[in-house]
């Protein structure tokens, strides 16, 4: 079992969130929050609605600017970077509802995420060479969409769209992958495949997942952080968190 209390300056954390606060018109959605994510760890964040889970991901990926506190990723302070720089640093983020380009094909969706030619003129000069096609096919195989590459993304099922977005992140090859409710709205079979997919993709990277489905959480989590009113309520293994009376009271009990 991991020990939670560790020296904050320890260099082996991939992500250190310290004293993070964000207030919207005086309401503190995230309040003096600190947590640390190790390399190659799957961390699941759970908590009741309005606990600030999605806001934490928004803060890490730069969509929302922090009022106070720091987010260090490797040796980089993320709170001062623009969104695209945060991506370049190695952070990928999946949104809650599938966020894909419906008018483009699956292939083109994946191609846009391929980490090359991200400047304006780089994009103009970008060539679809063998390396690109091979990588896209490899990822498509992994996300169960190999036979759908030429299809317009609008025609995919809900679950397939979720996988496509995960695939778009994989092609970026981020060191930290953040997934917001990846199995919401999926069928049982799709859930199982998604869990399988997550186990495959964590090799060599850390993952932060927000999820409500406890069965799924137990399946994948190395450690669990429980958020409540913008603060950490409890943290540790699933076993420990499940038996924490505070957690049972605010979240799991009902």
């Amino acid at each position, binding site marked *: 079992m991991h020990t939670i209390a560790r020296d904050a300056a320890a260099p082996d954390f991939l992500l250190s969130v310290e004293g993070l606060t964000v207030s919207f018109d005086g309401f503190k959605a995230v309040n003096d929050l600190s947590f640390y994510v190790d390399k190659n760890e799957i961390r699941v964040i759970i908590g009741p609605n309005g606990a600030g889970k999605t806001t934490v991901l928004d803060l890490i*990926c730069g969509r929302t600017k922090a009022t106070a506190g720091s987010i260090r990723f490797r040796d980089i302070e993320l709170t001062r970077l623009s969104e695209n720089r945060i991506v370049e640093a190695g952070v990928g*983020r999946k949104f809650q509802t599938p966020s894909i380009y419906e008018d483009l094909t699956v292939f083109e969706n994946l191609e846009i*995420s391929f980490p090359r030619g991200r400047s304006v003129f780089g994009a103009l000069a970008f060539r679809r060479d063998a390396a690109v096609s091979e990588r896209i096919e490899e990822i498509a195989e992994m996300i169960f969409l190999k036979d759908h590459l030429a299809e317009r993304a609008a025609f995919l099922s809900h679950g397939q769209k979720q996988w496509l977005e995960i695939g778009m992140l994989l092609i970026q090859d981020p060191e930290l992958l953040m997934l917001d409710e990846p199995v919401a709205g999926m069928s049982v079979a799709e859930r199982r495949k998604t869990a399988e997919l997550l186990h495959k993709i964590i090799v060599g990277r850390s993952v932060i997942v927000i999820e409500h489905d406890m069965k799924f959480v137990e399946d994948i989590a190395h450690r669990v952080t429980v958020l409540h009113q913008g603060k950490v309520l409890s943290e540790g293994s699933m076993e420990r968190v499940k038996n924490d009376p505070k957690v049972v009271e605010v979240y799991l009990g009902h």
Partner: protein
Amino acid sequence: MERIGFLKTSEAVGIAILAALILIVLPLGLDIFRLNLAGKYLTYAFVAIGLVLCWGHGGILSLGQGMFFGLGGYAMAMFLKLEASSPEATKIQSTPGIPDFMDWNQLTELPWFWQPFHSLTLSLVAVVLVPTAFAFLIGTAMFKRRVGGVYFAIITQAIAAILTILIVGQQGYTGGINGITDLRTLKGWDIRTDEAKYVLYFVNAGLLLAAVAAAYFVRQSKLGRILVAMRDKEDRVRFSGYNVANFKTFVFCLAAALSAIGGAMFTLQVGFMSPSFVGIVPSIEMVIYTAVGGRLSILGAVYGTLLVNWAKTSFSESFPELWLLGLGGLFIAVVLAFPNGLAGIYADTIAPRLSRLLRRARPALGGTVPAGAPAE
């Protein structure tokens, strides 16, 4: 799918048909007066092509493209006006050697910003550079602050209105409401003769075809797909590592540069430039050309421009008071019934029949299908 260079075969055929129309059919079928009119319409098509990329693909609606058309046109007109205002030609003025409208407004020397327009090279550079730089300024200011959608459209409209007021108000520097008129020669070559009009028509048509090809090139590049992606899910593009503001600024600048070339060709062919091509009304008309042609179709934009302008000329010759109503009605009809414009109608009704016909004809043609590079 076969490809010819960066074009799909069907796109290459489409461009070839357009080229045949504007390079052969129109010059043979129209007298020089009508051909000159067609040439004028085609200068608006530059704006429409820019709008296809910027609005149709990128989702950035600008209601102020007239300013770039106008700035390009004014840059050209300033050069021509200086050439027409030689000291000999203007010796009856109290200050010979400056444009007539300056003399009427008691200016006694050429303003500093007119000086570069003595040089044709500098003027041609200014035709493209000034509007593009202006678009860059607007784009950077707006897109970095994440101003988009309706707000951006309104702001472009406001800027177009401001520019018109500025041009009209600064009569001594700009020629005011009349614009810059009485343009005569380009490096000594009289642009008012029929021969010159023919030559200018063909130069314009050639430039337009180049603009069409450039637009296709941008659209088939990854940048073209990123534009569509931004229109769909801007945040996803941002969180895929792209600086969205830069891409929007680029396509807005490209549309501005194309408009400016159209404006300069307008000045050359029509012989004047005035604020009535800069403001809100012409800017919105240009959006209508694009919508009628189909805002996603580069070629559609050209046909839409030709068609609406041809209708405008014929209607306003017979029922001048009804034209504006007709134009408004046309816009409403297109938005409601044919959201993809002429190109949409073509794709839904004519194209399927055509491809069936071609498939039947292809075996007979044998090996004459052009051997293009593989698609991927």
